[in-house]
């Protein structure tokens, strides 16, 4: 309607058509230049024998699929990839469920309480991961850690001088706690922000029609929140699958192979034993597994984005 009234752009059509490309150019150049090239190099490197000698000579040795063969029959790799997937699943599921509960709770509490909870979430969110890792390391300290003291006092068993990292299952539980605790703020606040957009009249209408709290969430709120759930689940999966800092730094940069995630395994192969080719192969496999796992979310997300 209004467009018809606007005087036509006097500039030549070609210049107008080039404008969007000019606007996009710097960003695309940066992304492709800084990340695209290394990504291509990573793939190329995964087909090379590339050790310390090759690094100094700047010249690798083409070995075809040898690296992939070595890694794919390596029992440690199978163990690591299974463990990383399980860890990711546990973290993402717990993060999304707990965050949703917190987001719903945030709508129910009185204003003052909401401000307190939001501030707490923001504080945790803003705290650097490395800082939180140091805090948790201190809290789980086997000798003077507050967690052992509290668990013992709460009669959950005798945790005096209990080392959480002797047993990998307990150690991984600690990492799930650390990662989920750190991930909750972003997800909870995002879902809460989404909840605010659910029209109150729709919920009221559903209640009048006899829908219970769960039905209202399932049939009114959840569909409206779908794009937000897609994005937070997808991002959480990507972040948790690539977990490195929490495990690596909490174990004083010397994790045993029981505590390898794919990212740590790749890093150790490259910078620990200078097998850059093998490290690159593991990194490529990491990306491939991640793409397969998140394909569904990405497709849905793009669908949602293209509609608007």
């Amino acid at each position: 309607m209004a467009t018809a009234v606007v005087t036509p752009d006097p500039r030549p059509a070609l210049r107008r058509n080039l404008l969007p490309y000019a606007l996009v150019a710097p960003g695309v150049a940066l992304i492709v230049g800084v990340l695209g090239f290394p990504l291509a190099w990573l793939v190329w490197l995964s087909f090379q024998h590339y050790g310390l000698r090759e690094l100094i000579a700047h010249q690798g040795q083409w070995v075809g699929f040898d690296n992939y063969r070595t890694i794919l029959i390596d029992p440690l790799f199978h163990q690591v990839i299974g463990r990383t997937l399980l860890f990711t699943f546990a973290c993402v599921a717990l993060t999304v469920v707990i965050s949703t509960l917190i987001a719903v709770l945030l709508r129910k509490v009185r204003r003052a309480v909401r401000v307190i909870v939001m501030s707490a979430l923001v504080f945790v969110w803003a705290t650097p991961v490395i800082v939180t890792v140091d805090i948790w390391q201190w809290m789980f300290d086997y000798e003077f850690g507050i967690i052992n003291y509290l668990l013992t006092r709460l009669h959950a068993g005798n945790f005096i001088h209990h080392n959480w990292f002797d047993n990998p299952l307990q150690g991984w539980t600690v990492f799930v706690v650390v990662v989920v605790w750190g991930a909750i703020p972003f997800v909870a606040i995002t879902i809460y922000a989404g909840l605010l957009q659910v029209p109150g009249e729709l919920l009221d209408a559903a209640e009048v029609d006899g829908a219970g709290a769960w039905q209202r969430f399932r049939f009114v709120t959840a569909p409206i929140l779908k794009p937000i759930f897609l994005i937070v689940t997808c991002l959480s999966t990507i972040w948790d699958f690539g977990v490195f800092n929490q495990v690596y730094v909490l174990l004083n940069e010397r994790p045993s192979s029981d505590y390898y995630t794919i990212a740590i395994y790749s890093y150790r192969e490259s910078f620990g034993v200078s097998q850059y080719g093998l490290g690159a192969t593991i990194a490529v496999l990491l990306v491939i597994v991640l793409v397969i796992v998140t394909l569904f979310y990405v497709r849905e997300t793009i669908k949602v984005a293209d509609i608007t």
Partner: protein
Amino acid sequence: MIAEGLRVRPSEETRTVNRVRASERVKQLAYDSAGLLVAAVMLFPIYWMIITAFKPGRDILTLTPKWLPAPATLDNFKDAVARPFFLDDVRNSLVIVAVMLALALTTAFLAAVATARFGFKGRTALLVMLIAVQMVPLNSLIIPLYMQLDNIGQVDALPGVIAVYLAAVLPFMIWTLRGFIANIPVELEESAMIDGCTRVGAFFRITFPLVGPGLVATAIFGFIQAWNEYIIAYVLLSSPHNQTLTVWLASFTTNHGPEWGPLMAAATLTGLPVVVFFLLLQRYLVGGLTAGAVKG
């Protein structure tokens, strides 16, 4: 009888109303307590860090923990700040974040305008690329990034790290800003143009101010990402005077068993700028995130 009924009914009604109110109050109390419990659990680790940082050494290593720092001391902070390279690394972190943010906001904004306001060939491909890039964990690119920067002599130099962070945050920033700009009706700009604004003028007078919250939200995101990043900085920046605060912080742990007091003080200092930045700007954030997320 009628009179009696009239007298009884109101009092019965008030009683029911009171009962409903009471049960609602109990419910509200339950919600509020649950909320406070969530806040307490989330905040406890941070509380414990700050408390530990203010305790003298003999109060830290106790089998029965002290819940408050009495007596409190600043010794741990003095110890942490006096460690080598603290000021260097503070400066490096600030420079990296400031330069990176300025460049990222400008380029992301331009690209976001293009994808939100113009239909052009390759737009969908670009959007798919923006998502695809975010799927590749930065950690997996460390090896080739290191080699690439080594080739152009930018290993152990801040510009290399800035470029990597910049490319890493751009996809998310463009994506989020795009959502903000798409949310602003084009009709607003068009009516400004009817009133005599040029296209550029309309954009800067109408759209730009409305995108403010979006810029703030993405700035916070970029600040946190860059300030908190560890592994890239750890690998790329090898000399201590070139490192960032997170690397400086990690170097505390390995020496000879962690010294919890100074470590917690250092951790408090490292986290402080982000918390301040965040608290200053957070009221823009909630609206910002939804705009970005819902509009894709």
